């Protein structure tokens, strides 16, 4: 019995000592806790300034670049976006741009030329009749806006992957960049450029693409958010140098995939 009693006695003494020490420590610890909470509360109150902080913005931008890579990894080049029936079309299809509908650019089709440049063997300009003569494809797909809303539209044009091969694009390059008549600019990754549903679009709902939806052409990608789909394209180029984009340079995620 004796050897058993001893450690129990020791334990009790230790516990009492620990209790006493804890009680002695309490006032300062309480104060520390209080100050910590107040500090947290203050930083919450200045919530707006957290967003303006340079280092925070740098961190968030770095995570956004990481998210580009994560999305490129998730992107399955064979995974098709769902297609819909004519009855499911959203009418009217919403107009959306970084300007109002009154400021939509008026592009003259007769003197319009599409410039194709960069890492392509067939560097040249294309007229609209030449583009309209390319193989035709149609799709009824959902357009998803970064704001959250979505709309189903019917688009006609030519598969972009075929067009890229026709112009002798280096499809091992990283990016395809676009410049537009409304001073918009955008760029996409090559796997998305080659996706079977990526469509160089000349038609909306069986009609010539109206000015509000991007006459004379837009790049329609049901695998990307709306802002990644450039309208009024006047130049495209294949490159390995990151070209950025109008919204992307202001903080939207570059990959913008869906």
């Amino acid at each position: 019995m004796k050897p058993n009693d001893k450690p129990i006695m020791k334990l009790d003494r230790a516990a009492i000592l620990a209790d006493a020490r804890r009680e002695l420590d309490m006032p300062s610890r309480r104060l520390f806790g209080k100050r910590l909470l107040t500090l947290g509360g203050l930083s919450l109150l200045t919530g707006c300034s957290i967003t303006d902080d340079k280092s925070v913005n740098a961190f968030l931008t770095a995570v956004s670049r990481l998210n580009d890579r994560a999305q490129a990894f998730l992107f399955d080049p064979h995974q098709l976006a769902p297609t819909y029936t004519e009855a499911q079309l959203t009418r009217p299809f919403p107009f959306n741009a970084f300007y109002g509908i009154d400021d939509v650019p008026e592009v003259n089709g007769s003197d319009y030329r599409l410039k194709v440049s960069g890492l392509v063997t067939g560097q040249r300009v294309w007229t609209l009749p030449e583009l309209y003569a390319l193989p035709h494809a149609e799709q009824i797909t959902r357009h998803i806006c970064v704001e959250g809303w979505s709309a189903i539209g019917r688009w006609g044009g030519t598969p972009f992957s075929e067009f890229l091969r026709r112009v002798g694009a280096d499809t091992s390059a990283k990016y395809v960049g676009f410049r537009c008549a409304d001073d918009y600019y955008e760029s996409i990754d090559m796997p998305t450029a080659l996706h079977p549903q990526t469509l160089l679009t000349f038609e909306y709902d069986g009609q010539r693409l109206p000015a509000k939806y991007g006459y004379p052409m837009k790049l329609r990608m049901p695998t990307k958010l709306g802002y990644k789909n450039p309208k009024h394209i006047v130049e495209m180029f294949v490159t390995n140098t990151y070209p950025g984009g109008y919204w992307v340079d202001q903080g939207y995620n570059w990959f913008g995939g869906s």
Partner: protein
Amino acid sequence: MVIDMDTMKATLTPAREAAPRNTPIHPIWLRITHWLNAIAALVMMFSGWRIYDASPVFHQIVIPPSITLGGWLGGALQWHFAAMWLLVFNGIVYLALNIASGRFVAKFFPVSPRAVLRDLIAALSGKLSHTDLRQYNAVQKLAYLVVIVDLIVLVLSGLAIWKSVQFPLLRELMGGYDNARIVHFCAMAVMAAFVVVHVAMVALVPRSLLTMLRGR
């Protein structure tokens, strides 16, 4: 035999009492994952409100921009898609440790509708005991289980919105892209309600805040 049992009890009791004193009410991994989850979930909610405002699912519900995070849609999206990594990976660590350690079953089960009702009535009439913070009452068990499931629903519906093309199964499970946004919003509302009640309960039993900070 009887005498032996009694002497054993007598000698063991002090040691037994000493044991829970030294083992924390909440183990260190639980406290860390709890606070990381709190940060991630709140950042997700406040930035999510700003994203929601860009195109409200329910036209009559708009969140005052002053209580949102991010400043504008692009900023809110950056916060949202940064905090998601913390929410998901921290959540996986929490669930894995919780289940593997047996704490999940020990703490949250059994939980019966009758016990929940009994404890709810006791709580509302101010008769619910909070002396032993080791033991969750039935209402607590239910609330924590609900918020765990709710966070899983939030992550899955969020994935369906973010990658509606890449995850077709998830998209169809949520009833399509537009419906996934409704699921995401409703799950957010459940989480917000939990946060309000949870913080109110902590204010009523401040000792529970200390145990989540220092373990005892």
